[in-house]
């Protein structure tokens, strides 16, 4: 091996560089470091101490710290990725970086989110908090970036590096705040809400059975209810949705369903990691290459050490220890580990010839070691277990040596991997090879600048694209008023098509609803048992309709009304047969009829004069029309005012009562009902012939004497109509015959709500008392099939008992003071009776012995609506806008949600969700188990309470002259049916879902029957 000094280079003694190293880190150095760390921890402590009103302070504080730390890690990683070699001591600048980046934004964010109204949904709270602090956060960030940029232009390398770290850290901290900390915060807030709910439960609910009971009950109910509600509709959500969805939503749902984005990202990450592992200089590839090198036979033994792949140092190196390079060290193999950075030590091996090639060394090559990280030398010497503390190393000047070798030898002496390395062109001459090697760093320097600019331009472009993408996503996905409470579609304008959240309006249908006309005034009460439909208008007239065909079966006019002349065209020809009563011969009218109620000015209650003797007869009319008298003395204006408020504000007492009845009519449909005696009259048949026959042979109908009271509540089961009047009188009518079967007026307080269930009548009165009646028939009943309808075979039909005997109504039990204030809601199911009152409480009674089981307290306003079903899940809504779910078995409150601004006007449950409507004309759909709001539907003004559930996934709402069908699971508008010709029609204030899935809305003075299957036929 021959080494020749290069002729164009001379060894200069002044080129010797000594690098001194300090002693091991001592206490004197540690004290400032410890101080800064103490200050850092004090800063973090005082910052996170301000986090308040959250569920887990420690968790959130940890998240905040993690946000800052990981943003610092990201900044270090990014800077290293782009080629910045850190020269600062990381441990020293770390506290300052944390302090510069700061926890302020996180705290401000937490504070503003926490201070949003508690009753809002979590995502809305987050959105509001973010938007309220967005300006200050942006301003702070811009200020800090500006300060740091000024620091960058000091042109001091250390400060520049610090500023670079800080800038990248700030940006990534912002990124993490928005995407990581906000998420943690929302989870925390949701946890807090759940914890609050648990905390607010009454102590007797500490039984752990609250939730476990609810769950099986739900499934049980699914099993139980399905067969008993035989709808001809079966909605299949998936195929259904494909038909109805707008295209972009379909794409999004598809993406969401298949988790496409996540999988792509995952696959990409795996591939990326694989590539990284393979191409990493210290990674798999070089390791494999090293293995191959060791196993492959070396070319010539005389060639000295093979070039070692970079980064992998041989564990057992032949030169174990030297602290100072000897000036004439012939071979320094470890220097070849950094071929691009240490060419001055690259002593070529395999020297054979002395022909001198021209190798040029510039002065820039001498100082190349200064580009090394300051930890390079300690790390390097650490590999040899040599500490540099208190020692120094000397960097010798470069001694370029020349060697001459022919190409063949050079090729043979090459490392097998060299052909692929970038700095060794395979076909170059050896001299050229070394020249390239020595010129390399300067070239990469210039190249690096260009790369930096490219990266900067690319980063700018990527940032702009990212912002634009986010903007587009926001535009596409978020409705305009996202982040405002009560979001969703804006209030529709009149005449505008109803549309769903995304502005999608399905086509209108051409189906014509069946219109039931015959009432003179607005319809106030509705009741149905699936077969029959009873309606009562403000004029006090009760009409009985066939729910299948829409025929009017019976009319019961207001008792005591005079027969009057009225327009003959009042009745439609579709009412092909009807039994008309003539109220003109009844007892004189007694106008003042009701005890005082909250919204209605009333006169004193008057006792009835005649008891329940039927003193009048009714004439039968055939096809010619007989009118019902409009009664001038009747208190329509009073009703008008009473209901006028309801139209404006949405709260009306009678509507609550009616809703009770609507539900009750459904619930009681399977209970056999009694048929009042109708001697000599055959059963009403659906066919017209039978009807015609019937009307000829039917006897005169008996009518009750005037009972001085408007009808406040109405209930129908089988063909018995139970009417509760404002005078406190309870009447039982035969729906077909139009006869008064019996009545009871022992108490003069008005009946505000009725439940008719299983031969048992419960009447809630205005003075807060509850009366339990039982119906008894005195002869054996002969069950007859009422109008054999083939479609209802599976469900227990309301078989009608035809008997020749009278029905007696006995007062079995009275709860004198069930509530201190008027009872506003009354529901019964599953052997339980639930009353809700204006005294903010609910009470649960057992139906059999009318024993009070629980008194449920938890509302802060009057109870407005109550729902109970067979699974003993009880929901109640109050004037405070809250919805409570209760477990009737234990009397404990399961959940409590502030649902509406204003009263909750109506409440229904399905197996999976709770549907509520409020005075704010919103219909909210809540998840039943978690109490989280799924979505809300904006209703027309005054139609807030009109909703009905047809099946578990079909919801009907009323609108301005129309009804809309919604898919409950997704909140999509499926269909809109217009009820009248003109769009200026009255709002549909009530919707009653019948057993055969028809809907009745009280639509002014008309009723409309809409058959849901037609909607679904359209869909298919």
């Amino acid at each position, binding site marked *: 091996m021959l080494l020749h000094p290069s002729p164009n280079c001379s060894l200069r003694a002044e080129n010797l560089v000594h690098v*001194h190293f*300090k*002693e091991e880190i*001592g*206490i*004197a*150095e540690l*004290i*400032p470091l410890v*101080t*800064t760390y*103490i*200050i*850092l921890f*004090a*800063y973090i402590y*005082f*910052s996170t*101490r*301000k986090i308040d009103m959250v569920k887990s302070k420690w968790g959130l504080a940890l998240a905040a710290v993690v946000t800052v730390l990981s943003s610092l890690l990201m900044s270090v990683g990014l800077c290293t990725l782009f080629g910045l070699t850190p020269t600062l001591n990381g441990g*020293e600048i770390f*506290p*300052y970086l944390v*302090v*510069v980046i*700061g*926890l*302020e934004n996180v*705290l401000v964010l937490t504070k503003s989110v926490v201070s949003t109204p508690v009753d809002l949904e979590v995502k809305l709270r987050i959105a509001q908090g973010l938007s309220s602090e967005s300006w200050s956060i942006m301003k702070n960030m811009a200020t800090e970036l500006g*300060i740091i940029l*000024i*620091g960058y232009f*000091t*042109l*001091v390398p*250390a*400060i520049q590096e610090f500023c670079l770290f800080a800038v990248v850290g700030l940006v990534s901290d912002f990124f993490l705040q928005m995407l990581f900390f906000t998420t943690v915060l929302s989870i925390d807030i949701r946890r807090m809400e759940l914890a609050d709910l648990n905390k607010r439960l009454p102590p007797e609910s500490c039984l752990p059975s609250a939730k476990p009971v609810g769950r099986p009950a739900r499934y049980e109910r699914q099993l139980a209810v399905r067969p008993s509600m035989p709808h001809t509709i079966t909605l299949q959500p998936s195929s259904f949705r494909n038909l109805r969805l707008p295209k972009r939503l379909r794409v999004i749902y598809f993406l969401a369903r298949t988790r496409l984005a996540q999988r792509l990202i995952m696959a990409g990450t795996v591939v990326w990691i694989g590539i990284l592992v393979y191409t990493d200089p210290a990674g798999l590839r070089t390791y494999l290459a090293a293995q191959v090198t060791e196993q492959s036979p070396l070319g010539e033994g005389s060639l000295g050490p093979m070039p070692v792949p970079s980064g992998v140092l041989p564990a057992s190196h032949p030169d174990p220890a030297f602290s100072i390079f000897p000036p004439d060290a012939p071979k320094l193999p470890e220097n070849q580990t950094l071929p691009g950075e240490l060419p001055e030590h690259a002593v070529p091996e395999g020297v054979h010839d002395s022909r001198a090639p021209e190798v040029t060394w510039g002065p820039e090559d001498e100082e190349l070691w200064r580009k090394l990280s300051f930890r390079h030398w300690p790390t390097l010497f650490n590999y040899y277990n040599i500490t540099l503390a208190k020692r120094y190393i000397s960097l010798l000047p470069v001694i370029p040596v020349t060697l001459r070798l022919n190409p063949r030898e050079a090729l043979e002496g090459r490392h097998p991997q060299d052909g692929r390395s970038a700095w060794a062109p395979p076909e170059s001459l050896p001299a050229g090879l070394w020249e390239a090697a020595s010129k390399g760093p300067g070239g990469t320097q210039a190249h690096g600048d260009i790369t930096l600019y490219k990266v900067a331009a690319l980063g700018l472009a990527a940032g702009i694209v990212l912002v634009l993408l986010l903007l587009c996503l926001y535009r596409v996905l978020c409705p305009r008023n996202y982040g405002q409470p009560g979001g969703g579609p804006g209030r529709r304008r009149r005449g505008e098509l109803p549309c769903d959240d995304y502005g999608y309006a399905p086509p209108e249908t051409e189906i014509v609803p069946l219109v039931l006309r015959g009432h003179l005034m607005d319809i106030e009460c509705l009741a149905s048992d699936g077969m029959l439909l009873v309606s009562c208008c403000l004029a006090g007239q009760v009409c009985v309709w066939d729910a299948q065909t829409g025929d009017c079966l019976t009319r019961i006019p207001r008792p005591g009304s005079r027969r009057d002349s009225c327009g003959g065209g009042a009745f439609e020809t579709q009412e092909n047969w009807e039994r008309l009563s003539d109220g003109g011969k009844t007892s004189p009218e007694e106008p003042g009829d009701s005890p005082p109620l909250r919204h209605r000015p009333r006169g004193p209650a008057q006792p009835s004069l005649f008891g329940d003797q039927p003193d009048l007869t009714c004439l039968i009319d055939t096809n010619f029309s007989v009118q019902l008298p409009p009664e001038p003395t009747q208190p329509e204006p009073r009703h008008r005012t009473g209901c006028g408020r309801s139209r404006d504000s949405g709260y009306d007492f009678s509507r609550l009562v009616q809703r009770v009845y609507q539900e009750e009519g459904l619930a009681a449909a399977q209970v056999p009902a009694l048929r009042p005696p109708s001697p000599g009259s055959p059963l009403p048949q659906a066919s017209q012939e039978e009807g015609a026959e019937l009307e000829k042979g039917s006897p005169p109908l008996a009518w009750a004497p005037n009972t001085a009271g408007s009808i406040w509540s109405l209930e129908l089961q089988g063909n018995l109509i139970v009417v509760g009047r404002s005078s406190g009188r309870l009447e039982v009518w035969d729906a077909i015959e139009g006869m008064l079967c019996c009545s009871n007026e022992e108490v003069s307080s008005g009946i505000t709500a009725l439940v008719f269930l299983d031969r048992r009548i419960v009447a809630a009165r205005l003075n807060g008392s509850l009366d339990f009646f039982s119906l008894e028939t005195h002869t054996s009943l002969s069950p007859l099939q009422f109008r054999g309808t083939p479609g209802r075979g599976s469900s227990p039909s309301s078989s009608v008992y035809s008997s020749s005997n009278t029905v007696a109504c006995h007062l079995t039990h009275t709860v004198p003071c069930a509530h201190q204030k008027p009872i506003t809601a009354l529901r019964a199911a599953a052997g339980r009776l639930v009353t809700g009152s204006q005294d903010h409480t609910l009470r649960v009674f057992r139906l059999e012995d009318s024993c009070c089981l629980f008194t449920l307290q938890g509302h802060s306003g009057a109870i407005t609506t109550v729902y109970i079903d067979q699974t003993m899940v009880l929901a109640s809504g109050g004037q405070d806008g809250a919805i409570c779910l209760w477990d009737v078995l234990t009397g404990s409150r399961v959940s409590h949600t502030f649902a509406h601004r204003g009263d909750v006007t109506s409440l229904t449950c399905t197996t999976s969700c709770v549907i509520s409507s409020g005075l704010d004309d919103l219909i909210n759909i809540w998840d039943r188990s978690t109490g989280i709001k799924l979505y809300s539907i904006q209703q027309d003004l005054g139609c807030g309470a009109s909703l009905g559930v047809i099946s578990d996934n079909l919801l009907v709402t009323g609108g301005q002259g129309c009804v809309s069908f919604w898919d409950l699971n997704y909140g999509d508008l499926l269909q809109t049916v217009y009820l009248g010709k003109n769009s200026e029609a009255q709002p549909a204030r009530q919707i009653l879902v019948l057993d055969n899935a028809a809907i009745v809305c009280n639509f002014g003075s008309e009723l409309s029957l809409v058959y849901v299957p037609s909607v679904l036929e359209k869909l298919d």
Partner: protein
Amino acid sequence: MAEGKTESPGPKKRGPYISSITSQSVNVVIRGVVLFFIGVFLALVLNLLQIQRNVTLFPPDVVTSIFSSAWWVPPCCGTASAVIGLLYPCIDRHLGEPHKFKREWSSVMRCVAVFVGINHASAKVDFDNNFQFSLTLAALSVGLWWTFDRSRSGFGLGVGIAFLATVVTQLLVYNGVYQYTSPDFLYVRSWLPCIFFAGGITMGNIGRQLAMYECKVIPEKSHQE
């Protein structure tokens, strides 16, 4: 050293008890003591930082390196910081504009950290020339004031303190009472006002925070009695 540090949250914890049995003057004394200890502590730590600048030229004896400077320097710094820390809220009260900007302990901690960082940078970072060095330090100090104070009275007081302290130091050095470890006298003089300014702002911040705590406690006390 460390005890001086833990002193700063100390009065906050003891505050209610102490203030319920003491008067306002005692409270001022307590604040002064706390500020004094903070000043002493910071002076020692920062002195250590300055020594580390030329650490290889010094013997590695820790204790002597800490007390290698004159013994009276830390107490002087402590006294000065106590005066400054009491002066700031006092001036605020006299000017009738209570300082409202970022009145939190976390902000104060941040301020202290930035102050230490400025010292650290001045000790560790190599600058090309003194002009650049002092310009950078001045910018950093003004940035500190803008970030944590933003009051005109604070700025004026800081400038005054910086001027006064520089003059005093120069006088001391001229008279040979005190000498810097570094022979580069001009070099030292250039960065001294900036450090004094930043220190004044920082101590004023701490003092205001303590005073605000006193203001909060004393109404409570009067309410209790």
